[in-house]
């Protein structure tokens, strides 16, 4: 279980001014300011949950993850991982953590992949029997056999990521942090990683915290989302609830036989007209799609229509735009 209470992380940075004059000024009398990267974040994640930790670039995601994993010390606030503070008892906490940074491998670049697993075996004191059993599981879940003896530098990005995941899971941690695990991967590789994540979660009740910009990851894996922006938690809840609350509309795209008719229905908005095509949007709690379709077909002949459900992207758009 992960408990974060009122986490704050501040960094002291030197203000940079432009030009030679600014550089000289910075040298003689540097102006320092405090930047708050994480500003009062609190949440609680239970065993076995898969939580999407989302937010735009610079929102404070990585800083939070680094505090939860003991890399950074919070300026104030409390973190408990399975009841233990990572800052007071780092080695005890990390014994039970697996961490994968999508953009930074922990594998040894120049050596065959298997050597990195051997190092993990020694670091986490995994017994020979347990190691053999875990390796068998990893081979079958991630298909490692074909490239286990290849130097890491020669692996494709997808293979490398599979290797990283295996290295992070060899000691069977109860909590797995995944920082953009599917970044840069092709569709098949992404799917393999997602299947693996689902599998370890189901098999071992592993708690998984996933930071990603890939909304497909979120839709396929996360039942709960925590959205952070400007260092604060702005949303926390089940994915469906968030969509219901923040994107409670549904859209119908209609292709008319002839010209687009004038549609004036209370509570239904025309959001797009393009030739014979029209997109209508309405509050799905107030109207059923059937009632809107029936009202439209009474006014004009329809060739084709489709109903669009809101997507996670619509929910997140407002935060991402806000930060842009």
């Amino acid at each position: 279980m992960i408990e974060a209470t009122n986490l704050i992380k501040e960094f002291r940075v030197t203000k940079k001014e432009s030009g030679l004059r600014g550089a000289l000024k910075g040298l003689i009398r540097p102006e320092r300011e405090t930047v708050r990267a994480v500003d009062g974040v609190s949440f609680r994640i239970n065993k076995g949950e898969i939580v999407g930790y989302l937010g735009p670039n610079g929102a404070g995601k990585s800083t939070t993850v680094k505090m939860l994993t003991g890399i950074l010390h919070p300026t104030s606030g409390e973190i408990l991982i399975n009841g233990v503070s990572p800052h007071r008892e780092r080695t005890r906490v990390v014994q039970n953590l697996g961490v994968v940074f999508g953009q930074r491998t922990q594998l040894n670049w120049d050596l065959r992949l298997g050597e990195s697993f051997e190092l993990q075996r020694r670091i986490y004191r995994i017994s020979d029997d347990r190691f053999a059993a875990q390796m068998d599981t990893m081979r079958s879940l991630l298909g490692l056999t074909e490239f286990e003896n290849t130097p890491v530098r020669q692996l494709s990005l997808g293979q490398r990521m599979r290797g990283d995941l295996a290295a992070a899971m060899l000691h069977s941690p109860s909590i797995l942090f995944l920082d953009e695990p599917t970044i840069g991967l092709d569709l098949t590789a992404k799917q393999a990683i997602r299947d693996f994540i689902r599998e370890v979660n189901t098999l071992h009740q592993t708690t998984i915290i996933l930071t990603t910009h890939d909304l497909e990851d979120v839709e396929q894996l996360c039942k709960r989302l925590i959205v952070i922006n400007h260092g604060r938690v702005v949303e926390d809840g089940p994915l469906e609830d968030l969509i219901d609350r923040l994107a409670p509309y549904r859209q119908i795209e209609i292709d008319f036989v002839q010209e687009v008719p004038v549609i004036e229905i209370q509570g239904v908005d025309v959001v797009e007209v393009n030739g014979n095509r029209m997109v209508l949007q309405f509050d799905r709690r107030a109207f059923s799609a059937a009632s809107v379709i029936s009202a439209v077909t009474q006014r004009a002949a329809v060739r084709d229509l489709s109903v669009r459900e809101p997507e996670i992207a619509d929910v997140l758009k407002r935060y991402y735009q806000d930060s842009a």
Partner: protein
Amino acid sequence: MSDFLNSCKHYASVGSFQGRMALQRQLEYPLFLVSWLIMIPLKYLIGVWMLKILVDQFQPLAGWTFPQLAFLYGLGMLSHGLMVVVSIQSWFLDHMVIQGGFDRMLLRPLNVFFQFTFMYLNLIGCVDLIPAVIIFVTGCSLTGFDWTFGNSVGVLSVVLGATLIRSSFYTLTACVAFWTKRATHMRAIGHDLMERSTLYPLSIYPKAFQWILTFVIPLGFISFYPSTALLNINHGTALPLEIAMWTPIIGIAMFGLSQIVFNRGLRAYESAGS
């Protein structure tokens, strides 16, 4: 007690495997090693040859004859070579701080200072040891150094202690990066100071400088003081001869200090990038 032994075994197992991995990694690029094999011995052999020219053309350096200078130069180089083998990473600590290189170490259930200290074995250091051995053996033979049991233990303990002083000194200077995020200049100054104070007798420098290199930054214990003791040279030394062989004690003290400063620095570590 058994917990302690288990822990030692654990660390030894990880440390030795990391060392092995480092060696395997370098053997992947053999040509790189060959280029160093030519450059480094040349650099230091030319250095000692220049000393010979200086002494032959002018006069002994602060009373030191060429055989004594070769002994000192060689003794200093032995710990330099050994440091380059076991502790080259202390030269790059500042890069690791700036690029977030300690993240992975902090995620492992092991002491970070241990991981940093035993993360690498550098084959190129063996290349540094070649001129070191040649020059030291020449120095020993020219000075008629007597390889008694006591003297042999003395040389060995000085070389090991001096290796500790060197790597701790580099670690300490690079630790500045934890707070300033930049330590390249410190490293460059440290490197120059190290070369100039360990390959030539300290007594050629002004008294104040000698005093600093004895009591503030005790680099004098790497080769100068031990050479005076081992060769029984009395001219121009600031220390009584008994203390001159304290290199291992000072090495251990500096190693302890570097660990304290490193751990303090780690608290200020900001883990750059995402």
